[in-house]
């Protein structure tokens, strides 16, 4: 199959705070929403970062044995609908669950033909723009309380959303520190 190219900001092989269980997280590059206080301003530009065929992202060897699903974050995933669909379809084919974050609302996505196709491959959608004045304080995988959880399949239920923490740090063997999650952490290093 001819797979669409995705413009990717970063890929995290394993995370425990980006949705239920252990998940591979794909951060898309490009967003024009400009939410005040956005966690990821580096993902806004539409410059080319890593261009990868969507289907190859989940090739053998990329998925750790304990990973139960993928989380698509960004950036705005639905601004690359064809690649998003291919990525989600390949995840489904591998039996992985799918969680997608978007600044659009579910209603807006249902109204767009390209976007609506993607919804068929999503188990859990977290929708709505980030609102810095309504931060989520509970250990739930969302940035602000206006964002809604939509269980589009029976794979997950609200009880699956309690995260073991709000943030996660990875210190690699060369001292590089990667942070992910919700809420603000120290930038002390």
């Amino acid at each position, binding site marked *: 199959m001819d797979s669409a190219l995705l413009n990717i*900001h*970063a890929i*995290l092989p*394993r995370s*425990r*705070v*980006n949705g239920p269980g252990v998940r591979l*997280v794909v*951060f898309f590059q490009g967003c024009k929403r400009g939410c005040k206080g*956005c*966690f*990821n301003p*580096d*993902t806004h530009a539409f410059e080319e970062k890593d261009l990868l065929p969507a289907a190859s992202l989940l090739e053998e060897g990329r998925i750790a044995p304990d990973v139960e699903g993928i*989380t698509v*974050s*960004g*950036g705005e995933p639905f601004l690359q609908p064809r690649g998003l669909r291919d990525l989600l379809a390949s995840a489904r084919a591998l039996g992985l669950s799918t969680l997608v*974050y978007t*600044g659009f609302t579910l209603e807006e996505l249902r109204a767009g033909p390209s976007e609506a196709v993607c919804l068929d491959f999503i188990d859990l959608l977290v929708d709505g723009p*980030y609102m810095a004045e309504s931060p989520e304080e509970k*250990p739930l*995988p969302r*940035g602000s309380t206006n964002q809604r959880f939509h269980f589009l399949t029976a794979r997950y239920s609200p009880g699956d959303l309690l995260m*073991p*923490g*709000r*943030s*996660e*740090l*990875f*210190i*690699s*063997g*060369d*001292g*590089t*520190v*990667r*942070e*992910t*999650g*919700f*809420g603000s*952490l*120290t*930038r*002390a*290093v």
Partner: protein
Amino acid sequence: MSFYTVIKTELSARKYLICALEELKKKGEITNYVANERKDTVEVDRDGDIINISKEKAGNYQLGGDNRVVNAFSNRLKQMYAYESIKDNLPLDFEISSETETAGEIQIVLKG
């Protein structure tokens, strides 16, 4: 969206450098180290291999010695330095929920 950020670690604070060396000594990864406060240098003995740590003009500590030894040790030292620095600088409303080390990577989950 969840946030994602990457930080490159520089050896800039003596406090965390010493903490990292102390931790490596505890783990048996270095034999000993001797810090000279006046000269702001540290001599590390790693199983007979000597590594000298001194401050460069830009303000960061740099490692000197046999390249073969220094390159590998520099990475590990930066990893422990980052770990000590993060632990010491956690905001009061954050606490470590779990900590694991797999395939040479330290993973920390924080409650907040």
